[in-house]
């Protein structure tokens, strides 16, 4: 899809003026982009990044007055499809390399410009009341248990299936563990936050989400069962600026903020792994 002509024309006319702005020489820890008009930055980010990115958005706006950061949070698969269909955006942050690669292939992101910026791991959650009396990971295969997972197209869904594969190969688990667990699934949600909500509400007996989803506000809403490293999956998050962004400098600045020590601190605070 071809980008609209008018905003580009406007930018071409105004950009030379902003470059002459004397304010541009002041530099705080992260580069401040001189702006003379209200800029909006559109960031498409995986649903699991909601909390840390909201914070980083506020930080970015504080560092760049006049700039507004707008986020669209959804399953990475949905965002990738939107970008492939030409949705306008400036930054894309995906919970899996697979969807970043799809966007690169669609030429919305320059090959090689995407960077891994954080990692995540899976955790099993259950309602505070623990109606199914889950104590160990093996309990996930208990007949009659209601398990809520993400659809396999969602990164977290695929990671969950990978975890089940690993567990089935582990001697501590029944070889049919994965099949038995999948028999317990009652719903395949299309993003990770839906799973969290349904488990927190007590509708499902268990779910598998990211460790970052159960930090901060969500911490008290669900019980957590850790998945040991040997069985766990490392989700590698990838970030990139969109090649036809209307604000490439601003987009790069936001990406730099995410990669910077400040950004990494915010992510770590939300239980992401550096």
């Amino acid at each position, binding site marked *: 899809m071809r980008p609209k002509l008018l905003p580009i024309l406007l930018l071409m006319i105004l950009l030379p003026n902003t470059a002459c702005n004397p304010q541009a020489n002041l530099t705080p820890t992260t580069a401040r982009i001189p702006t003379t008009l209200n800029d909006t930055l559109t960031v498409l980010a995986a649903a699991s990044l909601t909390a840390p990115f909201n914070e980083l958005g506020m930080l970015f706006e504080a560092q760049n007055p006049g700039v507004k950061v707008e986020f669209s949070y959804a399953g990475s698969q949905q965002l990738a499809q939107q970008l492939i269909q030409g949705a306008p955006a400036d930054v894309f942050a995906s919970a899996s390399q697979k969807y970043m690669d799809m966007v690169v292939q669609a030429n919305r992101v320059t090959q090689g410009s995407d960077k891994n910026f954080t990692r995540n791991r899976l955790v099993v959650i259950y309602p505070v009341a623990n109606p199914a009396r889950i104590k160990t990971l093996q309990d996930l295969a208990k007949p009659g248990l209601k398990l*809520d997972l993400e*659809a396999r197209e969602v990164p977290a869904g695929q990671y969950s299936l990978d975890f089940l594969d690993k567990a089935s190969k582990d001697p501590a688990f029944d070889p049919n563990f994965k099949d038995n667990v999948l028999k317990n*699934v*009652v*719903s*395949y*949600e*299309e993003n990770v936050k839906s799973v969290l909500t349904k488990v927190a*509400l*007590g509708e499902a007996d268990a779910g598998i989400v990211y460790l970052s989803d159960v930090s901060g506000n969500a911490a008290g809403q669900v019980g957590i069962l850790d998945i040991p490293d040997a069985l766990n999956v490392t989700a590698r998050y990838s970030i990139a600026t969109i090649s036809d962004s209307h604000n490439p400098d601003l987009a790069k600045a936001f990406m730099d903020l995410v990669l910077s020590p400040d950004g990494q601190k915010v992510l770590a605070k939300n239980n992401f792994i550096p």
Partner: protein
Amino acid sequence: MLLFIALPLVALFTYASLSELWASLNQRQVIEAIRLSLVTSLSTTLVTVIFGTPVAYLLAQRRSRFNRLVDSLIDMPLLLPPSVAGIALLMAFGRNGLVGAWLASAGINIPFTTLAVIMAQTFIASPFYIKAAAIGFAGVSAELKQAAALDGAGRWQTFSHIIIPLSWMALLSGCVMTWARAMGEFGATIIFAGNFPGRTQTMPLAIYIGFEIDLNVALTLSIIMIGFSFITLILVKGILHRRMEANLELTTTLS
């Protein structure tokens, strides 16, 4: 305006190739979604007709304050965003819900079942039938009803022999609207009933998930949905049109 409505529909057809469509049609997930959509939407229509007709009859009576309240209540699902409806249904019938908790202790769990899909669709789509039926019932002239009563007809006889035959066109179009809305229901379904192929994944849900991974699946289902809707609408309008013409002939010859 016409162009605005027609263009997206036409665009769907131009992006799909016939062979790819046929291949998608044979996929199990697609067949399951179609089957589930048909079963649930038809069940919803049936439930709506059975339980909604008395309500419509009530609404067609004189305009009391109570009736106005009922009318506003029936309007609510039309005004609510479907996702809000889904959340509300969860709060009422979920495992920890108002009624749901009690049902759960009796061993009945509604969320994540096909019943939940039907309930979500009924909540969203029934007002269409109820309103249409109420208007149809109200359109039967009081004189006819009085004449029937004078001739000794009981309430049920008046209803089945006078009111229904005279308002069947409104009832039919109400049914079609409810069925169509139920077929297209998404927000309340995915929140209350969840998304599980064969059990709760109706066509709109399959299209939504399919769009994110396999555009062909999404396109196939979209085209099928449009096909269904279009054929049904044409058929029903055809029946209604012919009926109206016949009525017109009758009244002109009589007068």
